[in-house]
């Protein structure tokens, strides 16, 4: 076991990440160690990244311990680059974190400067050139090669023709060098897709009441709707982000089935969403920034009421679906699409009702047939005890939920073979023989024998799969 991270006290004693735990214990007998939890580290980094979205929407995680932020066009809001870094450092120092920042023209240069820069430099170019070749973070073999060739700093490499370097040390190394020197085109991939339309409001004094925050949100909704109207569009997916002054960030998302730009509807949906939250919004010491983003919008022509009144009903239904999807949960309000398979439990694809605008095409059953598929389906099927005259024949009676059912009428078997083309050859699955059963009291069941007697299994199991009306 090795040390993954050490605190400043341990660093002062000469311990460093990477040394073996036994050695560390030998140096410092009363060493306190904890298990390394990389998941928690990552969670923290995610939270910090959330908090940094107040500076710029382009935030990317630079695992394991860094963030890359594209501040192009954002710094003037904080009084220039110096103002921005000062504000950022203050915010994180206030909550007890140690941060290092570096500004550069390319993400790679910023990444290298923040980790490998030792002495301050007058400008970015000199700073980068003063870095050692370790800043390229190459494989051990290449690094040794560079050292043997006497190339110690980036400046040593930068003056040499890249073709010679590529021939000797590989393309990877020259690419990294170009990135570092800002000669290659490299960009940040933000953690979240950028919202197409963003409105936000910053508060000099944090808002500590949820109700006030929601009222402010109402104003933002109005602004966003104006923006949508100018584009002739209606929003489908709205994300509200509450930034707390202590760095915590809370997201609330609302989706609508039809594009909308009615502030009243959206306001109602947002309030509905806030009410339905399992853990309510906690303002803590107050929110100092609220941002409303329209993540997705679609063209929406100014509406006209139809004389027949059909549009009103459709709009009413769409509104209801939006509200219920928020209250019950997005996936709890469903429509069903057919799937092309014979396996009964896979024949239906549940879709969130809010997403399903396209008409679903179901084939009507053949006329004059009794129902061949049950109204209720058990997934997974329920095991039952069956008495049959012959092992591969129809059931005579069966026991389900501690009750005995005497079979009065049956139809079957309807044989459904496993989908061998989807399964691995060594695990072929079993054929199912389905019977429609009616017991002496008139209850109708759908049961199946799992496996062909004698061929696939010695003693096939029986299951109850559904109930007919």
């Amino acid at each position: 076991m090795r040390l993954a991270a050490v605190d400043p006290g341990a660093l002062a004693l000469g311990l460093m990440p990477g040394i073996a735990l036994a050695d560390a214990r030998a140096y410092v007998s009363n060493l306190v160690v904890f298990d390394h939890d990389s998941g928690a580290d990552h969670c923290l980094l995610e939270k910090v990244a959330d908090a940094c979205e107040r500076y710029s929407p382009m935030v990317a995680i630079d695992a394991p311990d860094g963030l890359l932020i594209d501040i192009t066009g954002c710094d003037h809001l904080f009084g220039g680059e110096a103002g921005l870094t000062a504000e950022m450092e203050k915010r994180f120092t206030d909550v007890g974190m140690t941060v290092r920042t570096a500004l550069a023209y390319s993400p790679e240069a910023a990444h290298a400067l923040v980790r490998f820069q030792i002495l301050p430099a007058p400008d970015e170019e000199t700073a980068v050139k003063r870095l050692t070749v370790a800043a390229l973070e190459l494989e051990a073999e290449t690094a040794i090669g560079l050292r043997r060739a006497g190339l110690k700093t980036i400046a040593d490499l930068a003056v040499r023709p890249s073709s010679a370097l590529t021939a000797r040390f590989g393309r990877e190394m020259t690419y990294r060098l170009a990135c570092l020197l800002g000669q290659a085109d490299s960009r940040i991939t933000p953690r979240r897709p950028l919202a197409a339309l963003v409105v936000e409001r910053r508060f000099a004094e944090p808002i500590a009441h949820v109700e006030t925050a929601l009222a402010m949100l109402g104003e933002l909704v109005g602004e966003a709707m104006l923006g949508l109207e100018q584009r002739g569009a209606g929003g489908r997916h709205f994300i509200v982000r509450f930034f707390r002054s202590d760095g915590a960030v809370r997201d609330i998302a609302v989706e609508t089935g039809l594009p909308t730009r009615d502030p009243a509807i959206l306001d109602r949906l947002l309030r509905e969403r806030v009410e339905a939250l399992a853990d309510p919004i906690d303002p803590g010491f107050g929110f100092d920034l609220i941002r409303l983003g329209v993540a997705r919008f679609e063209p929406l022509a100014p509406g006209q009421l139809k004389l027949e009144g059909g549009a009103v009903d459709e709009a009413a239904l769409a509104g209801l679906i939006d509200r219920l999807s928020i209250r019950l949960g997005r996936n709890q309000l469903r429509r069903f699409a057919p799937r092309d398979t014979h396996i009964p439990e896979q024949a239906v694809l549940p879709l969130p009702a809010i997403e399903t605008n396209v008409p679903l095409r179901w084939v009507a059953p053949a006329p004059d047939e009794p129902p061949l598929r049950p109204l209720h389906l058990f997934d997974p099927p329920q095991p039952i005890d069956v008495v049959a005259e012959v092992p591969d024949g129809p059931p005579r009676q069966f026991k389900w939920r501690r009750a005995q059912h005497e079979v009065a009428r049956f139809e079957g078997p309807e044989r459904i073979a496993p989908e061998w083309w989807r399964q691995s050859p060594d695990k072929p699955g079993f054929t199912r023989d389905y019977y429609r059963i009616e017991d002496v009291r008139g209850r109708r069941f759908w049961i199946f024998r799992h496996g062909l007697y004698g061929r696939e299994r010695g003693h096939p199991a029986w299951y109850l799969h559904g109930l007919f009306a």
Partner: protein
Amino acid sequence: MTESPLTALKHHIASLEGHAHARAGKLFTLGAAVVDTKLGGGLAYGRLHEVFADETDDGASAAGFAMMLALRAAGDAMPILWLRQREAEARTGRIHAPGLAEIGLDPARFILGIAGDAALLLKAAGDSLRCTGLGTVVIEPWCSARALDLTLSRRLALAAEQSGVTALLLRTDAAPSPSAAQTRWKVRAAASSTLPANAPGMPAIDITLLRHRGGPDGLAWRLEWNRDQCSFREAPLPGAVLPLPVGRSAEAGRHAA
């Protein structure tokens, strides 16, 4: 009943509009003449009707009856919303869309909502019943009678009355308690008319009218559901095996019976 020309015209326009409002207070038939005449023409749109399963094992039949009533009330095109409590989903199995098609409902106009608890379910039901875009709302709570008291049921009934959306309250595992429902039915599975080779036939149920506001109650029928016409009919006598020459497609015999 005589109508003034103006009201007649209003009704005519309303029927053309196909609005849920316009339906409020009118009647939909079950399709079986015996039942409809006893009910005085049918069941009322925009009212709360309760469907109870006689025993828990009759749950599927009760659900089927509720779905059939929903179909009768919603007509050919209006969407049907079924709100279930998660507990019901766990106990009776989930709703199988092809099974709905087998009853005669095009699953494309079916919406299913699952609620975590009874309070959430009833709140959602109240909201849904106010939506004129729906044909019928089937509400399936899985809670004690006490949790669904008279106040709640009156709230549902009022919402249904205002919008004209028919509300069906499906109770699989509960005993009847005082409520604001227009009618209350008890459903029990019945032996279906046997098809050739001893196969079970069309869904058959025994229904009892436990309660009917302003009408007779305590009546019982045995009905069979005809999927192709989306209507009920009186079930043939039990034990009658219907003659059928070859295959299922020649169905003249069954209809004659």
